[in-house]
């Protein structure tokens, strides 16, 4: 009997682990592309990010090198002599979407502005997510007073409209990219805290947490290696949904800042949009509508991708 143990079919080990992991990734991808809308969403999202990355590496590849100095402008001043020109598909691609205040071409400026929006949106969402997930799962896991306090704080945050609250914080801190980012992180973490707190509460009572405790894992260890990995897949979906909403609020704040007449910002899509606002009353629509559609497309495609990810990412759902 004893001999049976220890000699049960030992096989020479092969580097199979990496191959297997690759296989897993392949099947995940195959599952994902079956969902056509999600695939389209992902392609568009990736295209946006590719543009932003190219812009960081070398803006000349987008053909926007001459704009860098021209972009520091003060929106809101109507100049009759220099009304924006309408979309023009016959000439250079710069003018496909027309021009905005002081005859700046919209399309290349938009491409150049994208990097700010995307970078700061990603920073906001990821810092907000990390803070929210850690605080929320701690609240759910430890319970008691910590839970009460954290949840009441999130209640306060939820009772205020995101946009107004963020704007108020920006007003207090002063107008700058950095402060807008800080304001939005402050506004955003409670979403994640509340989401993960609920999930952590649910996970906490499961059998494998008890099993982890039985094998001597301490509280912190259980939290970080058992609870948090298990609550993450809904969080991924929430991230992809939030990328869409945060970029809107981010652009929205700069839209307001632009409309208030603040100056000397690097061009950002919301700010660009505000530059065309005064012309809307005299029927010149493209300086506002085109950047807005540009944002909308990003939001929609990110949401579609998020929906597709939800079906694929959860190892419990896929068989």
């Amino acid at each position: 009997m004893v001999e049976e143990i220890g000699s049960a079919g030992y096989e020479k080990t092969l580097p199979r682990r990496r191959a297997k992991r690759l296989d897993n990734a392949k099947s995940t991808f195959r599952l994902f592309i079956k969902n056509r809308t999600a695939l389209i969403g992902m392609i568009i999202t990736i295209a946006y990010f590719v543009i932003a990355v190219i812009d960081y590496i070398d803006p000349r590849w987008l053909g926007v090198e001459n704009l860098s100095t021209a972009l520091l402008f003060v929106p809101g001043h109507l100049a009759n002599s220099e009304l924006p020109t309408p979309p023009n598909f016959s000439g250079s691609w710069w003018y496909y979407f027309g021009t905005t205040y002081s005859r700046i071409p919209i399309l290349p400026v938009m491409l150049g502005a994208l990097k700010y929006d995307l970078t700061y949106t990603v920073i906001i969402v990821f810092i907000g997510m990390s803070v929210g997930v850690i605080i929320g799962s701690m609240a759910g896991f430890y319970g008691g007073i910590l839970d009460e306090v954290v949840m009441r704080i999130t209640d306060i945050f939820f009772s205020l409209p995101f946009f107004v609250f963020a704007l108020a914080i920006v007003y207090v801190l002063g107008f700058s990219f950095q402060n807008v980012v800080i304001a939005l992180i402050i506004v955003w973490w409670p979403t994640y805290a509340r989401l993960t707190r609920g999930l952590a509460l649910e996970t906490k009572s499961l059998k494998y947490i008890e099993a982890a405790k039985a094998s001597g894992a301490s509280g912190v260890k259980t939290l970080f290696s058992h609870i948090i990995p298990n609550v993450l897949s809904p969080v991924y979906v929430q991230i992809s949904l939030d990328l869409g909403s945060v970029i809107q609020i981010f652009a929205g704040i700069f839209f307001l800042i632009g409309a208030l007449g603040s100056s000397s910002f690097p061009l950002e899509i919301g700010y660009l949009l505000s530059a065309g606002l005064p012309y809307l009353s005299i029927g010149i629509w493209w300086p506002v509508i085109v950047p807005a559609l540009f944002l909308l497309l990003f939001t929609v495609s990110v949401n579609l991708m998020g929906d597709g990810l939800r079906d694929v990412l959860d190892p419990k759902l896929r068989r």
Partner: protein
Amino acid sequence: MYSIQNSEDKPKENEKKETYLKVENLVTNFYTSRGIVKALDKVSFSINKGEIFGLVGESGCGKSVTALSIMDLVTDPPGRVVSGKVIIDGFNIFSDVKDLARIKVKSETDVKIKKNKRAIKRHNLMLSKIRGKKIGMVFQEPSLALNPVLRAGDQIIENIMLHNRVAIADSLINRANLSMNDVDELIKDIQANRNEMGTILNAWCKKNALADIEAQLLSIFRNYNDTKDIETEIVTLIKEGLETVDTNALIEARNYYEYIEELQSLNLSRYNSSENITEETLRDIEGRIKSLQNTEGSKYRSYKIKKIFTGKRVEKIFRQEARRRAKEILTLVNLSDPERILSAYPHELSGGMQQRVMIAIALASDPKLLIADEATTALDVTTQAQILKLIKNLNQYVGASILFITHDLAVIAEMCNKVAVMYAGNIVEEGFVLEIFDKPKHPYTVGLLGAIPSPQVKSSEGLKLKTIKGSVPNLITPPTGCRFHPRCDFAMPICSQSKPKLININDNRKVACFLYSTEVDA
């Protein structure tokens, strides 16, 4: 397949077995809104080293609560261990049970529990050093007890890393220090007498702390004939993953973890101080802790900072070594393709495989007692037989004692040396399996054994399946006196008035019944 244990299980006169787990007067209550459920009422038993101890009874009689109470894993609220002792390897984990919470019972439904946060924190910290390391637990539903988002391998490795760092570092250092001479000698030895290849290898591996690659070495010797080939293969096997490691860093890490472990064990013994330890020894322990912290602590404070920078590299090597061990454990639990299992998610494994992985996780930290709480109940019969065989083999091979909890008498008969029968939160009878099955003493045991269906019942007319009349009592308002008396055929007036004591009726046989003694449990 395998027979009921025979006489060799009885301890010989001259050989006194050491007690590993001792449970004394354990009381666990559940404070619910409908009243206090007295789930365990002064349960006492003890398990010797290397023994398989069965716990059997109807569902709801407190078997699982006993297991959870031993680990202090009873869900709180509403459950709580109120009093009693659980002595694991000489260490009473409930030495501070009175400090953890103050319980004010106004009435059955109105109970105020005031918890002492600080004491509970200390208690849990102490328990996390005991759980896993001294007691492993195998749960009933393996599919629920494995974390679905972590690979099976990661869960085993995690447990190895949690408790065995010094041992891992030791084997790594030994491997790094192995000289070519040692290898050459081994090859010469084996080629001289190939018949005893296994035993020579075993001794060599034990000497050099290389037990985890014993199977690989064996297969090398089987597959290759040329001395040169064997040599290169062995050297690559031993050096695998070692090229990148700095032995000095490893030694440093090892010393650090040893220091931590020593400190922990000292702290544990200080913690246990309320348990009849004299002032003197307590002071002695505290002095030792202080001197250890003074002499070694300062040395390691700088190491802690260094660890932040070099830790990643050492950690990676540790994980690799833990992975080797995980593979070894998986072969130990008869899983034939450990490499695949290690990188599989739990849902990709079958029920039997999951239960084996569960056992592997419990074994990873090398505990001396394994609690198998209905470990085979959720499995089908053939898998159940395999798992039972495995557990039994582990008991012989690893030498771990096993607390085997089940409601299946047949399983108990096949597996256990000793058995305790539980009824409504009490142990009513305890003894060697054969004796109890042969001559049950307590009326409940008699009924339980009589209720096993057999083919004869159907064939011979007039015979019906015997059952115990009535049902398990509500534990909020348990029957007075002996909890079994309303269902007992032999009930006497005294049974409803006072509770019988669990007494020795002969050497290894205990019964709690007034038929055998008039002793009353206070």
